[in-house]
């Protein structure tokens, strides 16, 4: 089922995230992006592997580390970039910014800045599928840290007893800001927590996009056929510090440079590229073409974002309510 087109699309989306994120780092440094932005570099295989296992009409929700999920789900980088710059052409008209990307037209029900908040939202979308009698699946993305929030527990139990089509997707990048999950999570793997809900829990190499794709495909099949939720843990790593612009955090027992360098040896894009070459699925040239195309796209997105206007003051009071009321 994983044909060459899909394998190349995986590469393309991972590269799109990578180059988007590199552009973001640059724009943050230049002061063009303000507020908070959290980089997904290093974790691309998790969202891309998972989202390639989904249909366009499936649902996802995400968190503060928020650019990878929508791009992986097929979101437009132009409106995403415009959003990060606070422009009126942004996907949320500049009201959301980095932490609140969403595109309801393609199943992206929103990134959430509050840890765990969007997990119940995804469960509710899955409940919608069940009530509407369709087979759309919902995938909430959340971190190792967020798996300690009560919302995680309540949501999984609810989805389990109602047999809702949800794939709980934990991106275990091993730290929550400076806190190692080894100190903060009582079990060895987040996936082990599935035992508390009698659902499958699987630990996956989050640097391997195909491993992610396969694990999520299996969980999605289960969900679609009415057998209920699963918990998938992608073990991964973020290259950057927690939040761009916060500055480099150095502290024992927080991670050291050696650890970061070690993980970079297992870069998800490099791993996938090597496989494509090795299995003669693509030539270096073809890969370069994909990358160049992606770079162009990102450049274009930046230009689009820069040239877009800011929202008008009058837009401040728009969008609060569907049935409008006077606001002061």
């Amino acid at each position, binding site marked *: 089922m994983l044909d060459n087109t899909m394998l190349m699309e995986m590469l393309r989306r991972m590269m799109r995230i990578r180059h988007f994120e590199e552009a973001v780092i640059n724009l943050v440094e230049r002061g063009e992006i303000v507020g908070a932005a959290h980089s997904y570099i290093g974790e691309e295989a998790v969202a891309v592997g998972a989202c390639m296992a989904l249909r366009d009409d499936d*649902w996802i*929700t995400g968190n503060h580390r928020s650019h990878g999920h929508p791009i992986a789900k097929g979101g437009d980088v132009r409106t995403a970039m415009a959003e990060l710059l606070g422009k009126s052409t*942004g*996907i*949320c*008209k*500049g*009201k*959301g910014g980095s932490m*609140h990307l*969403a*595109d*309801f037209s393609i199943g992206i*029900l*929103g990134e*959430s800045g*509050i840890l*765990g*908040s*969007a*997990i*119940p*939202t*995804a*469960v*509710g*979308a*899955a*409940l*919608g*599928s*069940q*009530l*509407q009698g369709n087979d*759309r699946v*919902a995938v909430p993305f959340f971190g190792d840290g967020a798996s300690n929030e*009560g*919302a995680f*527990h*309540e*949501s999984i*139990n*609810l989805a389990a*007893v109602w047999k809702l089509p949800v794939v709980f997707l934990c991106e275990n990048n091993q730290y929550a800001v400076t806190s190692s999950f080894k100190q903060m999570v009582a079990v060895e793997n987040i996936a082990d927590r599935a035992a508390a809900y009698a659902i499958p829990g699987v630990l996956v190499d989050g640097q391997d996009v195909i491993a992610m794709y396969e694990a999520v495909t299996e969980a999605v099949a289960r969900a679609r056929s009415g057998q209920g939720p699963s918990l998938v843990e992608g073990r991964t790593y973020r290259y950057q510090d927690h939040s761009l612009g916060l500055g480099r955090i150095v502290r024992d027992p927080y991670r050291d440079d050696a650890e970061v360098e070690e993980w970079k040896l297992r870069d998800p894009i490099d791993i996938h590229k090597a496989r494509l070459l090795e299995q003669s699925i693509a030539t270096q040239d073809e890969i370069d073409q994909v990358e160049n195309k992606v770079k162009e796209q990102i450049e274009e997105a930046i230009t689009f974002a820069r040239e877009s206007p800011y929202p008008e003051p009058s837009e401040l009071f*728009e*969008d*609060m*309510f*569907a*049935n409008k*009321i*006077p*606001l002061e």
Partner: protein
Amino acid sequence: MTQTQTDTRNITLTQALNEAMREEMRQDERVFIMGEDIQSGVYGASGGLFAEFGGERVRDCPLSENAFMGAAVGAAAVGMRPIVESAFCFMWVAMDSLVSQASKMRYMFGGQVDLPIVYRASMYYGGSMAAHHSDRSYPLFMHIPGFKVVFPSNAYDGKALLRAAIQEDDPVIFCEDRTILGARTHVPEEDYSIPLGVADIKREGTDATIVAIGGMVPRALAAAEALASEGISAEVLDPRTLVPLDKEAILKSVAKTGRLVVVDMAHKTCSAASEIAAIVSMEGFWDLQAPIQRLGTVNVHIPFSPALEPLCYATDESIAEAVRTTLA
């Protein structure tokens, strides 16, 4: 009280709420109800719905309020119209789903999504239920942008307002005051409607305006009755919805009477009564002929003892006395 059904039909507020839900569920299959032990209907308003609509649309939930109140958001986001049955005292555990998701999603995602959800919030105050079960925290939901807040004071208003709330495309906090749930008023068989945002003069008067909320309306009416025998003509205004608030009606009444007493059953500080007093002190200042009187629940948690609890709330007599004070 037996009445011929064709003549005047007097039903309780609980029955009226039940009818409103039943009719909306019959008319629109996207409407469903979630809550705790609602299938058994022990708590009244959801009685009989399970028998008619079944367990898919009348869902008993695990005791995971944050998850199911958040699932309501997700379900609404994908096209359903959930009604959630709960109580203010059980909403603290779910505040994150209510605030971070229900109230914020539409705005922060640039208006991409409508969230037609009714959160039915009981108030068990006034029945020796003590500190944990007597919350009346609707002022919080007035303070947080994104909610409509509806508060009927009788069965007639209740039925129409709940139907309007269910038809609304925004999240509504629907306040249910147990001190008046059993009171009967005439409710016609025929269709009728009351829009959100329109106050109602429950009794006309010329000497002073009493703005009373929910269960305080019958007390205000009793006070007005008592005052009438002293030759004082008090107008009783019931806002019916707190967001949107019918400011004009309040200002108009104060313009007529020159005196204002506001009666709330929330704690006084930062209450609905504070807000109404503030509005009139800004926008109706030149009409005021005496200081505003604000009555509300004293600023302590609700004590259990039947010797103490009644001292917490405004009474017929304290309202009448406040009116006298404004006229002194």
